[in-house]
């Protein structure tokens, strides 16, 4: 027989119940079918043979009812009724199912339904908003990474690397004419250029003395002409090789050419060495062509 008072005496009032959680001021009940959550004579699902609750599962509310007739069949004790998603209709359903039940239980069921619908609404709102994901940091890993970072910083030697990069860029000429440093290199290149012109002049004289008579008489003029030819050659060769250049002044062209020569000379590799040699060959070819012209002219006159 179901004696609620006996049960309550045994478990409830100042006795042991495994669902009971005691705090300083209050007693709570952890039973999942408890309607209020407190440990009371009227709220205890074990000590009340006629009892009802509202519970929520996956966003749907259900009404659970327990009557004394089924007290002997624990498997079938709780009757589960699915409540409507509409709040008002759900309230009506509760009223309909719990008609003639004690006021307390009806009221508490409705209160519980209200609370549940409120928190379900809040869940749906929050999932639409941004959700912050907290990623836990492992202290050991953080310490290890910090140490590695320090070591990497030491290995990087940042100042040296930056300085080196800047100097490389200066050498390559990305800064153009802003800095007037390549003066020393310019002088060296000028010396080189003078040597080249001297060697070319010697070659010119040797070839011309072998083939033409005019060369012997007009030595000075030929040398002057060869100088002009060299200047022309400079222009021509620069036009050939530096198609990107759009500057017109000869001086700048020759400067840049010299810079190129200097950079080629400074950079280590086999290819740049061919540069001046190539240029020499070019000079020779061009001079050949130009030498024929004045000869024809002079013949004409």
């Amino acid at each position: 027989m179901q004696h609620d008072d006996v049960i309550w005496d045994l478990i409830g009032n100042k006795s042991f119940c495994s669902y009971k959680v005691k705090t300083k001021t209050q007693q709570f009940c952890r039973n999942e079918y408890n309607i209020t959550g407190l440990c009371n004579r009227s709220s205890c699902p074990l000590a009340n043979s006629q009892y009802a609750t509202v519970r929520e599962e996956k966003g749907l509310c259900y009404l659970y009812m327990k009557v004394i007739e089924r007290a002997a069949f624990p498997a079938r004790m709780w009757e589960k009724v699915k409540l409507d998603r509409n709040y008002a209709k759900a309230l009506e359903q509760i009223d309909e199912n719990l008609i003639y039940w004690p006021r307390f239980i009806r009221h508490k069921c409705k209160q519980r339904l209200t609370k549940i619908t409120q928190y379900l609404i809040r869940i749906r709102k929050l999932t639409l908003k941004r959700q912050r994901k907290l990623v836990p940091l492992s202290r050991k890993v953080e310490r290890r990474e910090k140490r590695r970072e320090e070591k990497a910083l030491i290995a990087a030697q940042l100042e040296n690397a930056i300085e080196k990069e800047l100097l490389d860029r200066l050498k390559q000429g990305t800064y153009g004419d802003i800095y007037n440093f390549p003066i020393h290199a310019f002088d060296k290149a000028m010396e080189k250029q003078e040597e080249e012109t001297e060697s070319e002049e010697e070659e010119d004289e040797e070839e011309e003395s072998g083939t033409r008579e005019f060369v012997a008489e007009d030595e000075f003029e030929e040398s002057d002409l060869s100088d002009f030819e060299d200047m022309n050659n400079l222009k021509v060769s620069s036009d050939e090789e530096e198609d990107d250049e759009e500057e017109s002044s000869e001086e700048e062209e020759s400067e840049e050419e010299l810079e190129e020569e200097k950079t080629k000379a400074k950079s280590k590799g086999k290819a740049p060495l061919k540069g001046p040699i190539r240029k020499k060959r070019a000079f020779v070819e061009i001079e050949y062509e130009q030498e024929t012209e004045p000869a024809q002219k002079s013949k004409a006159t």
Partner: protein
Amino acid sequence: MYNTHVKQTEQKQQKMESNEATTSKSFSKKKGKTKKVKRKVKPDEAPVQEMDQAEGEETEMKPVSGACFPPTFSVSEIKNKQRRHSMFLKLKEEKRKQKLELKKKKKKERKVLGDKAPPKEVPKTIENQRIYDETTVNPEDEEVAFDEGTDEFSAYFNRLTNPKVLITTSDRPRGRTVRFCEQLATVIPHAHVYYRRGLALKRVIPQCVSRGFTYLMVINEDRKVPNGLVLCHLPDGPTAHFKVSNVRLRKEMKRRGKDPTEHVPEVILNNFTTRLGHSIGRMFAALFPHDPQFVGRQVATFHNQRDFIFFRFHRYIFKNEKKVGIQELGPRFTLKLRSLQKGTFDSKFGEYEWVHKRHEMDSSRRKFHL
């Protein structure tokens, strides 16, 4: 040096003898192996010492270790901490001496041989021993060049777009983060700082695109300190997520210069060798406008070393053609790449190109990915 060392050993021995004389009783009480053994040895050694000063130290060590200890003895077996420590120190000193002698010998040989000497050995560094990464980019690689011609940054590199950066933070930033954002905005030209106010990034991104921004930078904050950076290239470009550390604001810099001017700085990208590093490097490069104003003499550096990217901002001046002076202005920080995502910021459904997986990727000390 050798003579002074011998003198020191002499002094030591004398001290030990005097100590023993006074505290012989205490020694006898202590039941350590070493001290007892030494007591036996010392009186034997005292007459020997005057004869063989050159071998002072070695004879001190040899009889101690050879005659009285079992051969498998090691320093770590002594139970008494003080004695163990002193024995260990002696061991270390001996090792150090041996090493020094070896070095000296090698140096002498090198001098004697002159040009015929064998080449100097290069010390092993982590960079030397780095495990070769298959994705290291060859400068003449056509495939890479083709990829780069058609990827999301091609518009920038073909000079079709100018960078415009939006800098923002996570919710409710603290003073340090706000100041960091402001300083970043001075370093990066065409940068605007906006207050976050709880907006969702997915909603912010279309607005940015409509206003013509090319980059979105979100600085994440934790415990009043910036610790994360999300760099999103805007017209559906890649999104990179970095861990930020060692942020130093301008006023915390030592010997810093004046504030950076409005000139467009140059960019230096160092050590981005692998394919992943290449794409990250291009990301950084696209932050800055194309044509740096050399008049400003400012340079922003992203230097990659062992997967840590160090950012520095300097002002340089060429003293002559072989020397340049640099002065650090501007904030500095280090970044470590955590993930690279293909589209714009979408942490749930995004397609990740690269994610840092600690257990797989951090297993070797010599393997780096950038």
